[in-house]
């Protein structure tokens, strides 16, 4: 069984944003060289699992803080394994890129850039502790496009503390004005331990959050984007193939601190902590890993959980039977689900209530 999707994690950030609970290290840039060596070592150790690579995702953290020479070495290491037309995405914080970096990435085989914009409203960027101005965000997108990437994507947030529907509307207009190929628009999750959560920042009102979500979907659809996943929108052909692999329950290999891999019925997560990671690989050991074995039922339930996120129908032959087949008729009757020859699809309304529908169909215990 060979894996064709590869995630590479870069944990470094210049500061931690108020909402972020990712595996990140700040004030640790001096560890970048050692980290790169370790990451390349882990790649070598795990290479036997890889076939032709269809998609690569350089995520973070802030991968662009690794700077051009290190990223070039990393990309060179995987380049020989890339399939024809492979998708290679890098996450980028706008304030960390310039034309030279973007050109180097393009030349090293990166095809897709995903910018963390979050908002174009200065007061929200401040509330979220973001480092870039709206102008830096716009400039980065323009620059990436001019450098010739196949796809340019932007990440935005909704239901941020203090965000009004008017704020959202303005962000929608500013986003559409930039005409990115792909948009990820996430509802802010108040994660325990983040500074926003510890400050007791207000969570959005249930109705306002619903209005924001519905408004975002219709505005982006009206502009020609396909609502292909719960929080993701793409111009035709610009869907993120790497993410689609996750949502299709494909196998993937994740390398670096905090990265997760799923291969067959095995899932493992590398522990956090750059020093520990570097030391283990330096010794010739595996990094510290938390392992989990996925039994058939768990995998079936994950297929349903993931599959319902996508806009296409779920084939029962692929996903396996739902735990509560009797719920199907009820959900169809309620206008939330459509069923036809062995396939189930959420209706548009059903997609807004995806999680409720999932609980009706499946038993998570």
């Amino acid at each position, binding site marked *: 069984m060979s894996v064709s999707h590869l995630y590479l994690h870069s944990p470094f950030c210049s500061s931690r944003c108020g909402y972020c609970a990712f595996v990140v290290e700040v004030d640790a840039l001096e560890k970048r060289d050692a980290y790169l060596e370790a990451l390349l070592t882990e790649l070598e150790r795990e290479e036997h699992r890889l076939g032709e690579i269809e998609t690569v995702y350089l995520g973070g953290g802030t991968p662009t803080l690794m700077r051009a020479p290190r990223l070039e070495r990393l990309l060179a290491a995987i380049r020989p394994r890339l399939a024809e037309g492979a998708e290679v995405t890098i996450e980028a914080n706008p304030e960390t890129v310039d034309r030279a970096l973007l050109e180097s990435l393009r030349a090293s085989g990166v095809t897709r850039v995903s910018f963390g914009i979050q908002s174009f409203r200065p007061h929200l960027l401040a509330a979220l502790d973001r480092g870039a101005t709206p102008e830096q965000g716009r400039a980065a997108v323009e620059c990436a496009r001019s450098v010739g990437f196949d796809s340019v994507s932007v990440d935005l947030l909704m239901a941020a503390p203090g965000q009004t529907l008017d704020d959202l509307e303005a962000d929608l207009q500013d986003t559409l004005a930039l005409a990115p190929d792909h948009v990820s628009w996430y509802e802010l*999750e108040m994660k325990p331990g983040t500074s926003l959560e510890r400050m007791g920042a207000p969570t959005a009102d*249930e109705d306002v959050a619903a209005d924001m979500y519905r408004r975002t979907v219709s505005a982006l659809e009206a502009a020609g984007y396909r609502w292909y996943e719960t929080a993701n929108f793409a111009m035709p052909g610009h869907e993120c193939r790497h993410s689609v692999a*996750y949502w299709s329950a494909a196998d993937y290999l994740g390398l670096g601190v905090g990265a997760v891999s799923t291969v067959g019925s095995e899932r493992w997560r590398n522990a956090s902590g750059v020093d520990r990671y570097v030391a283990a690989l330096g010794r010739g050991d595996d990094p510290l890993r938390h392992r989990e074995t996925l039994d058939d039922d768990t995998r079936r339930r994950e297929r349903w*959980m993931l599959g319902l996120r996508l806009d296409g129908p779920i084939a029962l032959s692929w996903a396996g039977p739902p735990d509560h087949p009797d719920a199907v008729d009820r959900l169809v009757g309620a206008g939330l689900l459509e069923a036809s020859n062995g396939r189930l699809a959420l209706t548009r309304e059903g997609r807004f*209530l*995806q*999680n*409720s529908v999932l609980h009706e169909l499946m038993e998570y215990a």
Partner: protein
Amino acid sequence: MSRVEQDRIRNFCIIAHIDHGKSTLADRILQLTGAVSEREMREQLLDSMELERERGITIKAQAVRVGYTAADGNEYQLNLIDTPGHVDFSYEVSRSLAACEGALLVIDASQGIEAQTLANTYLAIESDLELVPVLNKIDLPAAEPDVHAAAIAELIGVAPDDVLRVSAKTGDGVEDVLAAIVERIPPPSGDPDGPARALVFDSVYDQYRGVVAFTRVVDGELLTRAPLSGMLSGARFEAEETGVMTPWSTPTERLGAGESGYVVTGLKQIGDLRVGDTITTTARPATEPLPGYRDVKPMVFCGLFPVEGDDYPALRDALERLALNDASLTYEPETSQALGFGFRCGFLGLLHMDIVRARLEREHDLDLLATTPNVEYQVTATDGSVTEVRAPADLPEPSRIEKIEEPFVRCSILVPADGVGAVMGLCQDRRGVFATMEPIEQRQQLVYDMPLSEIVLDFYDQLKSRTRGYASLDYELLDHRESPLVKLDILLAGDPVDALSLIVHRDFAEQRGRALVEALRETIPRQMFEVPIQAAIGSKILARETVKAKRKDVLAKCYGGDISRKRKLLERQKEGKKRMKHLGSVEVPQEAFLSVLSIGEGAKSGAKQ
């Protein structure tokens, strides 16, 4: 243990308003008499049940014997009977009183006389007990012993100097209490040579030894292995063991006239030898039993249902076991359309209900759903027959009801003058009928006749909050009175939910219905569909609210690194859903069944608008 002359015996109890220091004083007495060593001393030794300790209250009366060498050089046997301090358990107080010749009346020197001080004092005087007044907590800076000593002296008709002043906390003055017990409380006066008569003032069921009766021997003696019988129940048994609590159970060959102790009976059911029965010997039986107690009747009822239907037999077993040691707990099977099979249980009051529920959940590991508590109604049907209705769902059709009578209580509230208005307002809102008002110390005693149903829910909390904690309450059952009562139904998504029905006063039905649907709207989470909640009498809709349908329910973000985490989130959500009750297509959280208890103040029955 050697035979002790009756004049060397003192039987006494301690009575007090809650928190005035009864248990602490009992502890000091045990320590001072050497019954319990420093090492053995746990705070509030007599409050042995875990829950009692947790909530700092005394539930079960217990008797302890200690030895005390008085100033006259003689050794005395003191039998201390602890009494409960919560109004729910006031019947237990009267039990204990009947086994004593005297009582320590403990009053907090910073608080003075409270409602239960009065109630207990009257009970003790009615039972002809010698009262030894004790002002406790004199170590507190806020203590005003002189002021309160004068008031107490007046209340019970003694000289202010006769009021002892102690700190149960520091032990200061407790020696004088022991001396006063010996000097002031009369010894027992039964006939040591007559046929045996012993009053059962408490009994517990022990899985290995059967029913163990706590008893006060009035006449004659009980010998180990003597054939005995209960004069009221007729049960025959052998005294497998007689003994006393020191506070650990210590076998003795006999219990003589005037002594208190226990008898191991081997009886298999607590009903075979009830509290209030008189034990006598079969060889030489007494002719007249001792005066017993009025039967303890539960006053508050609620349905208890297992969250998991499979737990029904376990719930039945657990109730059976608890009832063995709790004569005031009753239960009968109940079937609810909404909640399935469960039991309608009877309790002395809300605290008793909470305690039983907590014990069922904790000691028997059951997940339970409780319905709104209600009182017992006497319903006279048009054909003249009278039934007792303990669940709203059991109320007959209105056309078949001649009249409904509800229990009334006499409610005594002590409150500082500036709280009188607030208390009167509250009592009137709760359909109270003013009886009397008179000053006691610097406070007023307000007496109202009130429907019990109006005080079982949150009256006490309301009273406390409206008087900033300065009011105290006591009540006793008075009679049943006819009231225009109706059944208020709650409909969820158009279907009536029997477990949510209430019996309410007609004039307050609409208001309460409105408050209840509002409370339910706040408790019931949004569902996939809109859920109308209606309150109705018969087919007449009085109030309506709507739980809006969910408009968004998605897990916002899900990437490769957090698939397991998202799956676990779904599992946790499922756990939450499991604790909900599914009524038709509506998921209702357990708290919803107690929504009446959370109805905002004023809305409860009839705050004038």
